[in-house]
């Protein structure tokens, strides 16, 4: 069952089109990565899902309910961490966490204490004295202390140190294990790569690619470095090969994922001594999409 369903959603602010008809579906138990540069429309999409912004056209649903009309009903079952956490400077972190948890209606005291410990947060300090990372921890503790069915996380780790990032990843993994769904918006690609089952890439209000990481990789180039006994002839002319660099005793090049087998077959006749192939990283994917179409 699709937990989140976005069907042909557009959003216009005056003349500016922030979202130009996007589709997105998150299945139960899935960690879904939502990547794109600043200003691409990630936060706008999330705010439409939260019922804070009203879609100009199209359908946005969570749990089969309309994100705008049934916002309160939906919000009882979701947890949200905004990208920039602004808190009331004269309330303590502990007070804010309690307030947030109570506003959802659930209360898990032991879970709260455990998370405060794991995220190494001092809940007795006023929010005004917290650093960006600590404010983010407040939002994360409040979110994971809630027993939600869907976690919407908008760049949740941008202020966290590597240790806390690890804790965050553990929390996401635990949620996934418990069968929860997660929408993780980020531009930290290693994070998405490690956590997400499927990914959508958004650019200028359009989703330009989505699918599992494996599927996406297939669409792009694999980097190959090969050493051969005999010099490889006419490497550039093999279909699907690009960016060739020849050096003494070998060459490195990129090859389209779908043609890898064929290319290797041809090269093998020059006696392969060593072969390294690296699958494209998400970063390669990202840059490929952005530079290719800019």
């Amino acid at each position, binding site marked *: 069952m699709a937990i989140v369903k976005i069907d042909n959603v557009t959003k216009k602010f005056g003349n500016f089109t922030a979202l130009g008809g996007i589709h997105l579906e998150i299945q139960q138990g899935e960690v879904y990565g939502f990547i794109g540069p600043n200003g691409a429309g990630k936060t706008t999409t999330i705010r439409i899902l939260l019922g*804070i912004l*009203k879609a100009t056209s199209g359908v946005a649903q969570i749990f089969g309910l309309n994100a705008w009309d049934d916002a309160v009903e939906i*919000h009882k079952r979701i947890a*949200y961490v*905004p990208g920039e956490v602004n808190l009331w400077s004269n*309330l303590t972190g502990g*007070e804010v966490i309690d*307030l947030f948890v109570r506003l*959802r209606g659930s209360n898990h005291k032991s879970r709260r204490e455990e998370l405060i410990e794991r995220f190494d947060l001092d809940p007795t300090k006023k929010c005004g004295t917290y650093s960006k990372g600590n404010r983010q921890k407040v939002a994360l503790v409040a979110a994971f202390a809630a027993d939600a069915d869907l976690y919407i996380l908008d760049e949740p780790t941008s202020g966290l140190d590597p240790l806390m990032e690890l804790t965050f990843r553990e929390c996401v993994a635990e949620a996934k294990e418990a069968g929860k769904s997660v929408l993780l918006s980020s531009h930290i690609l290693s994070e998405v790569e490690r956590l997400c089952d499927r990914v959508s890439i958004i650019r200028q209000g359009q989703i330009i690619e989505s699918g599992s990481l494996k599927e996406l990789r297939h669409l792009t180039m694999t980097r190959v470095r090969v050493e051969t006994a005999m010099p490889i002839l006419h490497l550039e002319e093999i279909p699907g090969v690009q960016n060739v660099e020849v050096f003494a005793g070998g060459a490195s090049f990129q090859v389209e994922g779908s043609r890898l087998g064929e290319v290797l077959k041809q090269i093998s006749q020059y006696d392969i001594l060593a072969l390294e192939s690296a699958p494209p990283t998400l970063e390669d994917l990202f840059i490929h999409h952005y530079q290719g179409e800019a």
Partner: protein
Amino acid sequence: MIRKLFHNTTVLAGLIWRRDRMRIPVWILSIALVSISVAMSFPSLYPEGPERFIIAETLKNPAMISMIGPGYGLGNYHIGAIMAHQMLLFTAMAVAMMNIMLTIRHTRRDEESGRIEVIRSLPVGRLSNAAATILVLAITNISLGLVMSVGLGVLGLEGMDWAGSLLYGAVLTTVGIFFAALTLLFSQLTETSRAAQGYTFAFLGVAYLLRAIGDIGSETLSRLSPLGLILRTQVYVQNYWWPIWVVLVLAGIIGCAALRLNATRDLQAGIIAARPGRRYASRLLRSPLGLVWRLERTSILSWAVGIFILGASYGSVFRDIDSFFQTSDLYQKILPMIEDFSLSEQFVAMLLSIMSMMAAIPALLILLKLGAEEKANRTEHLLARAVSRSGLLGSFLVIAMVVAVIMQVLSVLGLWTVAALSIHGNPFPFFETLWAGMIYVPMMWILLGVATALLGFFPKRTGMVWLYLTYSFFTIYLGNILQLPEWMAKLTPWGHVPNVPLEPIKSSTVVVSLLLAIILIGLGFYGYNKRDIRG
């Protein structure tokens, strides 16, 4: 060594001036213009003759002395003496507030937001920012004093000679520098700008109270307060300069102590350790309603005290009011004449109206806070949880409406208590006055309705409601003097209120205004549920 500590101070002073080149002149000019225009109005308010003597008599009661300070030269109450008596203390307090806010802004707040850290990573001395702040504020205070001295001196009003005007300006400069130094000290002591601001304002309040108590009974107590001390200059009457030197020396000592602490402490640390706050939220803090109360309670309490004092200060003038009004042409113009009622009764009707406008301010501030929360991206925390938009808007509105009622009750209470204390015998009856004050509550709610509608449809234009309140104030308060046509007053809710307690309350007025408030509020809710929330 010393030069190292102050390296590049002038460059930083330039930066402060660049950031505040509008703010500082606006402060100086608004304080100076208010004082000068009030001084200009005094000759027509207090024409020479026996009524001056009567005013001087009314000002001798303890309530008045504790409010505005001891009167000097009441025997020969010329315009200069009136000015120093009625304006100097409050102007000095305004100057103190200006210095508190500007100093915090450039010291602890910049430190809190991490801007000082960036500055300190450059070749800049450890004390340069504090020194630059002092430098800019010293120049600001001196300019303010000069503008004031020249402005008052040029008027050349009766009793306002140049020697007195120069001292008048010097008093304000001195008070300004003292509070700048004091704020700098508190900025070293506390870790947050809010705490520093709170402590300094508390100091200002204590200084005012100490002077109030001292002025009634104990000269020594008054002199312990910088505000009390500075009034001992007896501007335009005796023109003593010694209090100026004493306060300046004190300011110097406090400033040096602040610099010393600044030089030795760590960046972003305070001397008074911030005490740990609550680990858990209280039972109250479990709903948007609880949150609004938690966020606003300090300001609600301070407003409650302020509104009560305002009512009390109006109440304190009642003792000799009838004899005063009979001699004042201006006030006879302000008050619409109605036969068969004493002037003080008519004065009550007008006061209730004015005080309800003042009491509407805290209620509006609370409601408009919702707009500020949205701007600061904090409503999304709430709306992303199981909180409906109506619930959120409703929480702010309910507290604002209740606050409107409480403030109006407090103002009537303040007015009645002090009036009853100072008029021996039979003051106006309490419940009748309270009931008359309550007729203004629907009008205050209409104003809240306007603000709600703005929040629903024009969230960026919520400031319009302040214009409307200001318009109401001017048309009602000054309408009779300026001979404004009646329809101008009828554009405000206040223009439709019967002249209670002189005229009977018409139930139709109450019903219509409540209906109007409900319609406006309903519109606001409709709009708020329909529109995009910015954050």
